[in-house]
């Protein structure tokens, strides 16, 4: 943590991370109370990645997201109410309820869409970057994906072209150690950083639990891309505190309680930032409590909005098939 930050900015980071935390906790509750249809893949534990990266982006920059996408969408500027509405399949949701948890998309915040195909957005992000270059715009695209996506061929095809044409795209790999229920070591040969190296692509590895470290690393590769110096690979080491999805409760067969506990207690990105600030006496703990309370209240209101919102009318079903 090298840069100088003012307290406001640091608190803003905290706030952004807590927004994701609170949203996801409520999502879990909605699942458990059988209010949310289907499943959701919670981002809890990984908040510093989405926030660190998106804070380094401009509003008119683009992102693509994944099945574990709520964090990216919120960090890029989505609002609670329309997110929850989408998760409940309601009409005011970002996609009129037609996309759901895995497909939040929002042109206003530059969100090209979450993608339920592992690795499926690598080409899209790369194409958006090509498009920026062709139009002479200086917008940057961030492609978020989990380390599991590095086993899908499309990611390699895309990285090759991005590097070849020096496109303004960042491949942000969130290594949370697991492909669903399988430790990445069982599925991944060599090193993660070997992948971008294959194409001669700039690559940076960062502690994904340290929002300031992510912010700084992201800032560098984004500025590089914005200046036309080409793509980068940003490897963020992180951990999901909960299951692969909300229904993944018994996890003992693929990871230990100790491991989970370690990350939750020692490596929680929110605690890490708060403690760092408290250690330096930049603020006091009441401030965090106040932020949290405000956000929780906002979450509550948003959930109520979503619960009360109408389902899409039947006529919606065959609208938007063609543009």
């Amino acid at each position: 943590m090298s840069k100088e930050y003012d307290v406001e900015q640091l608190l803003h980071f905290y706030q952004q991370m807590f927004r994701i935390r609170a949203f996801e906790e409520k999502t879990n509750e909605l699942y458990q109370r059988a209010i949310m249809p289907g499943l959701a893949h919670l981002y809890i534990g990984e908040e510093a990645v989405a926030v660190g990266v998106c804070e380094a982006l401009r509003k008119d920059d683009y992102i693509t997201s994944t099945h574990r996408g709520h964090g990216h969408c919120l960090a890029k500027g989505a609002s609670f109410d329309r997110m929850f509405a989408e998760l409940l399949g309601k009409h005011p949701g970002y996609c009129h309820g037609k996309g759901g948890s895995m497909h939040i998309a929002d042109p206003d915040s530059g969100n090209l869409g979450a993608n339920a195909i592992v690795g499926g957005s690598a080409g899209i992000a790369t194409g958006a970057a090509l498009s920026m270059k062709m139009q002479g715009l200086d917008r940057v695209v961030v492609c978020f994906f989990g380390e599991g996506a590095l086993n899908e061929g499309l990611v390699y095809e895309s990285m090759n072209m991005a590097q070849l044409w020096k496109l303004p795209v960042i491949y942000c790999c969130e290594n949370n150690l697991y492909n669903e229920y399988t430790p990445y070591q069982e599925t991944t040969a060599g090193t993660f950083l070997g992948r971008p190296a294959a194409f001669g692509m700039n690559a940076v590895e960062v502690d994904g639990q340290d929002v300031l470290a992510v912010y700084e690393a992201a800032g560098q590769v984004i500025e590089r891309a914005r200046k036309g110096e080409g793509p980068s690979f940003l490897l963020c080491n992180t951990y999901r505190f909960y299951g692969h999805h909300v229904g993944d409760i018994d996890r003992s067969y693929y990871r230990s309680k100790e491991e989970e506990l370690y990350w939750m207690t020692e490596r929680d990105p929110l605690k890490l930032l708060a403690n760092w600030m408290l250690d330096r006496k930049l603020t006091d703990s009441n401030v965090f409590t106040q932020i949290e309370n405000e956000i929780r209240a906002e979450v509550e209101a948003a959930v109520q909005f979503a619960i009360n919102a109408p389902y899409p009318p039947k006529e919606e079903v065959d609208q938007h098939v063609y543009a």
Partner: protein
Amino acid sequence: MSTPNAVREITFGQAVNEAIAEEMRRDPRVFMIGEDIAEAGTTFKVLKGLVEEFGKERIIDSPIAEAGITGIGVGAAMTGMRPIVDIMFGDFITLAMDQLVNQAAKIHYMSGGKWSVPMVVRTTLGATRRSAAQHSQSLHAWLCHIPGLKVIAPSTPYDAKGLLKSAIRDNSPVVTFEDKMMFQLKGPVPEGEYTIPLGVADIKRVGKDITLVGTSSMVHVALEAAKILAEIGIEAEVVDPRTLKPLDTETLINSAKKTSRAIVIDEGHLSYGVTAEIASIIADGAFYYLDAPVKRLGAMDVPIPFSPALEDLTVPTPAQVVEMAKTLCGRV
């Protein structure tokens, strides 16, 4: 077909599990490869227990690489093994189409019969799980279109087990589509060894007034409709092709000749889907016996929406079948 003995009620998922376990026991060449299939037993938990019995060498947890594992299946099948490749969701076969269609399906033919590819690809179809457009498709029509591939779509635990065992023993690539909403469905399955030959349809209910052809879970929609229709005196015959490629056209045509009316129900999209093939075969083969046009019901021609309020509108229901059948039988 061997003779079954004692019969129990087990789920569709258990039937699949048993079929694989039995075949792995009898033939050391059979193995599985797929994402999260070992300790996790797949995301649907259908394969639970297999890794304990057969070990991680024969129940191989793979990287997330659908094209890669399908290609690996092809190469292993050509050289002495009998792989079962697990593609978690039917939507992901989009990533493996080259390996399935340009490789697996064609190698036997292109080599003049020299090489063969005794491989099974196990995947899913079916919506209404609130999984949205990329996890809800029923893309089996694509594979039925490709010579060299066989395609099965079982509707009951009994059929699931018997057909899958035949598929594993078959020397050609076979793709099996299981409706992910049926894994918990219970039904009678004999204790002992049995197989069901590929390419033979099954009449799931005998009737004389109208033929309802249903595939996979749509068999149950048809049966449900038949029950309602019976109450108003329409006796529907429910025919389940079970194998979609090769298709038992004779049974389909004969049923329609007998009843003079037919509705075909499948969960793939209506346009250019499975219903088109079956309907046109019946319309041709039973032309001089038909009292009404052959009708079709498929998934609505829209990407599957997430919202339950919309998703449920997209798949065929018993009520729709009943309505259509009544019209065809002149009851409205």
